[in-house]
């Protein structure tokens, strides 16, 4: 049968892709060897799990949550308390499995809060998650035994209770622990999309009414999906706790919840791998840009607005949009427009960065007239000429991008026509 044959090919393909994913994780520390890279890549793993768990809600079940850090953060706190218990020798539990404690905490609170929030869908659901998020964040001030007050709680991940004999003192060992969990959790969440629950979550997202008329209670479907999503968020939080050995109240807070939303959205909610891209990119930007500029949140916000307006499917959506032209052998025809847009786009970004950085220099620097180092140049923020040049570059860049956008659109129209032409393979 052709169907069983094609499903076997599909299976091999899936295994291949995940094996590649695992391989990349194994190999990366050999390429990026510095301790800051190792730390950044470890964070990427944590946020891949967190963002994928968030997409179980937003992308797969159509639930926009503003409070997902609750399950991440509580998972982290539970894990750290468990580690402290092992530190204090009141309990024995291998460090490798500690993320499961976080998962259990995330699941328990996912069940608790999910049973309230998933009774409603849409905007009401979003508002309830916001309320729960701020409630948990503020309760951190009340339950100081658990949350540790201002300073948070900390522990020592070197517990000497392990399965595989590593100490998990060196950050590279933690990296591989996180890497292993990233693969396990990502594969598990991927497989979940292929289960009846996963399919029905999609159905409830697309058309909750019809889902009811094929026998499903949409509240229960959303509730189970929500609880499981809390489980994986808790695992991510547990790994976060192991990595940093400290948890503070903001880890359960609304800023953290907003961050995972942004990551997931920028990566793309419509495809499973979208949040992986988002987590990697945003973590990179955070690490790279926050060292470079005070304005990184601003850049980040601009990028988010840009994505929402022009690429609502996120980066994964952009990639996916090119799959059909690629398969039809028409991708080449799109390239000239993109290349044409690239140069003015870089100009526009350079102009924008110059404007923003000079602005920060003027308003924040101790001595605003001290030159700033930008694009291998010394720029004086107090000089009118610098501002004129920067604005000119920005304007020219935007103008160029708008011009190139017309070429890109025309090329796309042409490619779409060729793909729809009779006899074209789709």
């Amino acid at each position, binding site marked *: 049968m052709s*169907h069983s044959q094609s*499903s076997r090919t599909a299976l091999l393909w899936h295994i291949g892709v995940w094996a590649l994913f695992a391989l990349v994780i194994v190999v990366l520390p050999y390429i990026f060897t510095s301790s800051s890279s190792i730390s950044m890549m470890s964070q990427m793993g944590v946020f891949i799990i967190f963002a994928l768990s968030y997409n179980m809600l937003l992308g797969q079940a159509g639930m926009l949550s503003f409070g997902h850090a609750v399950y991440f953060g509580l998972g982290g706190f539970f894990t750290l308390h468990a580690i402290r218990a092992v530190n204090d020798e009141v309990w024995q539990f291998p460090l490798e499995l500690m993320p499961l404690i976080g998962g259990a905490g995330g699941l328990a609170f996912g069940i608790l809060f999910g049973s309230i929030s998933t009774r409603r869908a849409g905007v009401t659901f979003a508002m309830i998650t916001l309320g729960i998020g701020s409630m948990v964040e503020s309760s951190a001030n009340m339950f100081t035994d658990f949350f540790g007050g201002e300073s948070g709680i900390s522990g020592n991940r070197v517990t000497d209770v392990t399965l595989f004999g590593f100490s998990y003192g060196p950050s590279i060992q933690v990296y591989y622990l996180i890497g292993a969990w990233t693969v396990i959790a990502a594969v598990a969440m991927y*497989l*979940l999309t*292929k*289960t*009846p*629950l*996963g*399919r*029905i979550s*999609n*159905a409830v997202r*697309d*058309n909750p*009414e*019809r*889902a*009811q*008329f*094929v*026998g*499903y*209670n*949409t509240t*229960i*479907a959303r509730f*189970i999906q929500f609880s*499981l999503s809390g489980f994986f968020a808790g695992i991510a939080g547990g790994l976060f706790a192991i990595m940093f050995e400290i948890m503070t109240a903001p880890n359960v807070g609304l800023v953290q919840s907003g961050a995972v939303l942004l990551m997931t959205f920028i990566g793309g909610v419509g495809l499973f791998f979208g949040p992986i891209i988002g987590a990697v990119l945003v973590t990179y930007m955070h690490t790279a840009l926050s060292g470079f500029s005070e304005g990184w949140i601003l850049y980040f916000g601009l990028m988010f607005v840009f994505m929402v307006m022009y690429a609502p499917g996120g980066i994964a959506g952009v990639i996916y949009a090119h799959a059909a032209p690629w398969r039809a052998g028409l991708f080449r025809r799109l390239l000239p427009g993109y290349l044409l847009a690239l140069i003015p786009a870089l100009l526009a970004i350079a102009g924008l960065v110059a404007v923003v950085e000079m602005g920060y220099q003027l308003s924040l620097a101790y001595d605003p007239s001290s030159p700033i180092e930008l694009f291998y140049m010394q720029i004086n923020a107090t000089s009118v000429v610098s501002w004129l040049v920067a604005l000119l570059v920005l304007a020219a860049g935007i103008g160029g991008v708008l011009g190139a956008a017309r070429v890109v659109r025309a090329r796309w129209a042409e490619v779409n026509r060729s793909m729809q032409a009779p006899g074209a393979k789709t």
Partner: protein
Amino acid sequence: MSDALTLANVHKRFGETPIIRGVDLAVAPGERHAIIGPNGAGKSTLFNLISGRYTPSEGEISLHGKRISGLAPHQINRRGLSRSFQITNLFQNMTVFENLRCSLLWAQGYKYSFWHLVGRQAALNEAAEQWLERLGLSARRDVPASLLTYAEQRTLEIGTTIAGGADVILLDEPTAGMGLAERDHTMAMISEVTQGKTLLMVEHDMGVVFELADRISVLVYGQVIASDTPEAIRANAAVQEAYLGEAH
């Protein structure tokens, strides 16, 4: 032996406006029952009441002698009643195959399982493939529902309704907006796939109605003014006056 579907003095008001005004109806098991009536008579509202989308303001609805009015749509569906929509109501982002498979999941007992992989459930996939074939949609297996032609969407709407195996089927204007050839084809398909089931159908085309139905009920302004065999309905003076006469 109890009727498959019974409506007893069913009323529905939206605010102050009465839309369904005391409907009594009995549909025997295995019967093909058509509901006809002018636009705005309340036919779709009646279906919404039976299928649990709305709850009656008054009166009682029973399925196989057991009360279903007041239950949620999914509960009514699980008791063996399934409905289609006048305005196509599918999982638009899912492929044709996925749509059919989703409508089989509960019926085949998977519930909310997160420990089965749907791709590996041979019986489930086999059943979905068979439905593709019966509906004549095999060539469109992997096309998202939103990209189907209108007639194909209507066909899938019917398939999604029936695939779950319910024994009481409600179809709301299944052939509305179709061309003549498509309509004949669809009616033949409906007749085939509802073999042995109880069918309640809203339909405007009199040719279709008189050919397929065992019995016909005429709904006018929220009330059933006649419920009888096609021949008797054709001969009924009140129906002539209230509906058939003015429609043609």
